[in-house]
């Protein structure tokens, strides 16, 4: 099977996946005990049941669930993600406004993860079973085991409040300005820690394996400096296995963004999702879930393609 056909096939296969995600999410939102209208009128002393009925009709929430779902699908296919009921206007604008924030945070998390993981992994692999290896293993396990909300709170309390190295609130500068990048360090570290620890462990394992291979011995025998051997040969070959798990780590970062955005008050999609769930904003929940689902599907796809390029046998598995 050619690579192109493989990619095409995988792309097609992701359509039912996203369909499944949308059906499950839509169904679940409708199973919740209260809907958006309930939330809107529940604590307004002047709202009557008649007002609620009117709102439901206005939003189309009085229709049978399958009809509501079809309406939603029809909207999605025409690029209309529906309205944010408690506010009026459409979901699309809100998503576009919040998306860069979440992406910036995720990227920062990734940058941090790589900056720590690569040297850490090399260090551990070259000192396999020695003290440095054990220390880095301990550090990596700690990174995986520390709850990120706890880490974020602690970092903020120490570095932003006590030491005053960072502002507490984001500096309201453009995303790529120096002030903003400086501010993003703490949330980035918080969100990237787990990914970094995972990546470090994977790198260590695959590098250690790689270093036992014949070509490394041969390279060393040729008298190449150890540094060149490690970086040019071992690391490059090990990176491949690390890159292929990037999809999983990305899913982890997306998950983590929910909590980290809440802790740092960063107006991204994760924080928006919690708000949307609290208010039962169907269209908003759907849009965010679909976006995240699509992101994960794409990341998985990228990983599969990478695998397929590296190891053509894999294509037969799909």
């Amino acid at each position, binding site marked *: *099977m050619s690579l192109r056909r493989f990619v095409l*096939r995988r792309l097609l*296969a992701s359509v039912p*996946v*996203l369909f*499944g*995600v949308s059906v*499950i*999410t839509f169904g*679940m939102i409708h*199973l*919740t*005990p209260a809907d958006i209208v309930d939330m809107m009128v529940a604590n307004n002393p002047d709202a009557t049941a008649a007002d609620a009925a009117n709102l439901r009709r206005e939003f189309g929430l009085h229709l049978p669930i399958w009809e509501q779902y079809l309406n939603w699908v029809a909207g999605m296919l025409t690029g209309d993600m529906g309205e944010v009921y408690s506010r009026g206007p459409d979901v699309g604008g809100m998503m576009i406004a919040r998306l860069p924030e979440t992406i910036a945070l995720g990227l920062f998390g990734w940058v941090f993860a790589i900056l720590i993981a690569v040297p850490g992994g090399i260090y551990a692999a070259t000192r396999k079973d020695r003290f440095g290896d*054990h220390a880095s*293993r301990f550090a990596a*396990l700690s990174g*995986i*085991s*520390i*709850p*990120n*909300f*706890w*880490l974020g*709170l*602690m970092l*903020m*309390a120490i570095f932003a*409040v006590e030491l005053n190295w960072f502002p507490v609130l984001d500096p309201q500068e453009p995303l790529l300005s120096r002030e903003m990048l400086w501010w993003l360090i703490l949330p980035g570290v918080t969100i990237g*820690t*787990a*990914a970094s*620890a*995972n990546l470090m*462990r994977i790198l260590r*394992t695959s590098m250690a394996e790689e270093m036992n291979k014949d070509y490394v011995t041969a390279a060393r025998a040729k008298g190449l400096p150890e540094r060149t051997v490690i970086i040019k040969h071992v690391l490059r070959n090990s990176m491949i296995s690390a890159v292929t798990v990037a999809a*999983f*780590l990305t*899913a*982890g*970062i*997306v*998950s*983590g963004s929910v*909590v980290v955005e*809440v802790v740092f008050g960063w107006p991204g999609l994760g924080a928006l*999702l*919690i708000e949307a*769930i609290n208010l*039962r904003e169907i269209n908003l*929940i759907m849009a965010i*879930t679909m976006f995240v*689902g699509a992101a*994960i*599907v794409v990341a*998985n796809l990228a990983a599969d393609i990478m695998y397929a390029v590296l190891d053509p046998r894999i*294509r*037969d*598995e*799909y």
Partner: protein
Amino acid sequence: MSTQRGRIQITGFDADRVEQPDEAIWGDDEDTAVMSRRQRIIQQLIRDRFALVGVFCVLLMIGAVIFSRPITVAGIVVQPFELVPYDVTATGVGDRYEPPSLAHPMGTDRLGRDMFSRVLAGSYYSVTIGFIVTGIASTVGIIFGSISGYFGGTVDEIMMRILDVVFAFPGLILALLLVAVFGGGYWQLVAAFVLPGWAIYARLIRGEILKVKQNEYVLAAKALGARDRSVVFKHIVPNAIAPVIVQATLSIGTVVIGVAALGFLGLGFTPGTPEWGTILDAEQDTLMSGPDADWNWWATVFPGLMIFIFVMSMNMIGDAINDALDAQVDNINHGGGG
């Protein structure tokens, strides 16, 4: 795509091996199996000092789960001991925010409740949910993955697409939605973590089965007319289970962090519950209590530390088991909450 997929080809036959499949064999390496799996794990745990400490911590916490408060089953007291010095919900047993002392080893919280009692009792939620979720999720995952991997073909295709759907939800987001549907609470949280959690086991065991089922004794068993169910669960699963065991150990920690994260977001348990994440949520304001204020560190440090110690311990144990079984599971932990 390959037409070979899922089809079994008989290439060799050895009747003796079929009748006595060696339990210790897995993978392709038939001759090196000398020790039983259990022995290997135990030996590795003893050799790996990190893991030994982990085992010790986990045992302590399980002890806390069992003995911190009396346990009654259907009205009968099955465990009468009560280690907690104070009622975990009793307010005013000390002053508001009393620092750690002999009377209150972890200080008191904002309502003058004893933190030590609460943190100790809190192990009940995290630890049991961690084990129960992993138990249920791995069982479901094994059954699902085995069926999918063994039968292959269309069955496999459909079942894998279902898996893809589950994987397209990051764990915490699905859990958030489920909590919105079912509300917070013990069994609701179990459900919220089982539903996204089983998929990884299904994928793992399916992958292993695809490898294992080409083995001679499996083919032979099939050729001899053994029923599908017995082939899968007597021959294939036991030989493919190593990575699942490793994954299960490692993911207990992930579940515990996830439960605590939901608690922290105020979505897991009702406010007064002595669950670690919920305590952290209620006490997070003590971290930033304004200028020149005393930092009531004990209110946040101890519950956070407990989460960390338990998860760390499970991960060290999982690591050791991974080494012992040489299962090479990459623990892709989705970060706090995944």
